[in-house]
């Protein structure tokens, strides 16, 4: 406890230096935690997909659960030859995975990764807890399209180009309804701060208070993450591998990993905004980390649901996807917004 008070003391005396130190430590810790967690997500996806498709999934490297499979894949990607295609716009081609990875970290900086209880007080685990973190995270999440577009545009490959176009068209079609859903949540929570949004859900989850908003946000999230049934940017049967057709070796690995990092962060955002975050009854013996347990249970359910959706549904055509975004989800999200205002008034 003395350490904690010493830290808060230092933060009050030297806020700027504290912010820099906090940023460096937080970024270094989170960069490794997120990447390891994303590996776990990849493993989970392959294993769950295997089960859902009545096959084994990875089961050779690292015992019958195939735990070391991802390590083996990483070693393979690192030892592959680094090829830059002749026609590529070299500087943009090289920078695309770097930009993609940096945007992932930008999202990670403002997302609370659960909370711990110290001295009966809930302390959220978040690096940059600013007033508008929900708006910030949503904005940073849509920056994803830039990395993908850079990759597709610079490859000088027709399939990559088509994938990049599709990615941007899809992003702008779903950006607006997603923003309206975030606003609807903020209207009920009276705040745009993610921690306060979670605290506002102590009595009722926003998924229950505005089910329509939850469904719309979930669809927009799956689209933003580019997962089945909305993975038109890399539809194998139509455009080879979409925006990353020309990428191989570690450069492909970075783009691929960034997708799974974003899947993890997006699922966390869904849990925070609609599923009550780390709220839950306090578990007696381990009350210190009981918010973390609830948080990770919800996160795991969302991740498995995303994988289940991927296995169950078939891919839409790109015109169906943009139509769904503009002509169905946008009006419905505005309806949900009015609903949120009305319900918020009724209970205020």
């Amino acid at each position: 406890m003395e350490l904690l008070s010493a830290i808060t003391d230092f933060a009050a005396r030297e806020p700027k230096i504290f912010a820099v130190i906090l940023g460096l430590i937080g970024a270094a810790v989170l960069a490794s935690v997120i990447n390891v967690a994303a590996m776990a997500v990849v493993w989970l996806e392959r294993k769950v997909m295997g089960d859902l498709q009545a096959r084994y999934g990875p089961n050779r490297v690292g015992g019958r659960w195939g735990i070391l499979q991802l390590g083996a894949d990483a070693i393979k990607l690192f030892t592959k030859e680094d090829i830059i295609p002749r026609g590529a716009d070299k500087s943009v081609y090289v920078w695309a995975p770097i930009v993609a990875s940096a945007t992932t970290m930008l999202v990670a900086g403002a997302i609370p990764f659960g909370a711990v209880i110290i001295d009966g007080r809930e302390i959220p685990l978040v690096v940059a807890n600013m007033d508008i973190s929900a708006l910030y995270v949503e904005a940073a999440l849509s920056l994803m399209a830039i990395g993908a577009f850079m990759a597709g545009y610079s490859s000088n490959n027709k399939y990559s180009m088509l994938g990049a176009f599709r990615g941007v068209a899809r992003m702008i079609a779903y950006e607006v309804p997603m923003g309206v859903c975030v606003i609807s949540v903020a209207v009920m929570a009276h705040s745009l701060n993610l921690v306060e949004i979670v605290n506002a859900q102590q009595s009722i989850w926003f998924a229950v208070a505005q089910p329509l908003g939850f469904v719309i946000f979930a669809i927009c999230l799956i689209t933003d993450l580019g997962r089945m049934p909305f993975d038109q940017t890399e539809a194998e049967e139509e455009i080879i591998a979409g925006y990353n057709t020309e990428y191989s070796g570690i450069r492909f690995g970075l783009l691929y990993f960034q997708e799974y990092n974003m899947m993890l962060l997006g699922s966390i955002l869904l849990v925070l905004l609609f599923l009550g975050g780390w709220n839950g009854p306090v578990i007696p013996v381990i009350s210190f980390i009981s918010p973390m347990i609830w948080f990770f249970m919800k996160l795991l359910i969302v991740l498995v649901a995303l994988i289940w959706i991927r296995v169950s549904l078939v891919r839409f055509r790109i015109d169906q996807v943009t139509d769904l975004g503009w002509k169905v989800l946008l009006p419905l999200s505005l309806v949900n917004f009015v609903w949120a205002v009305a319900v918020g008034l009724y209970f205020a």
Partner: protein
Amino acid sequence: MSGEMVAVDYYIPLIMFLIIGALVPIGALAAVKIISPQKSTFRKRSTYEGGLRPIRDAGVQYNVQYYLFAIVFVIFDVEVLFLYPWIYVYASEAIPAVGGVSIAITGMLIFIVVLLIGLLYDIKKEALRWV
């Protein structure tokens, strides 16, 4: 430097995040430079196009419809941006009420209706048709 933590200070850690986020892939690329084989040939570096020799480059002319999408997007995104500051206005008690309902809420409902009319017009004019 000492004093209160101001709003801008929250963004300093994010800059660190941006730097570390860029350094991780740069480190990975540097490691690959050292440990991976480098035997590049002319054929290896050609663009993939169904196994045949690529015909022309990918600089395609795209339909003007894409611009319409972009313009509609800019309009709607800016309109949605107006809703964000409104949340704090809605939450404050200082706004006068007419007929039991706050002016902030009636104003926003009118704004939403105007937005919806605009969207219906765009759909009717086929500005949002994918080609």
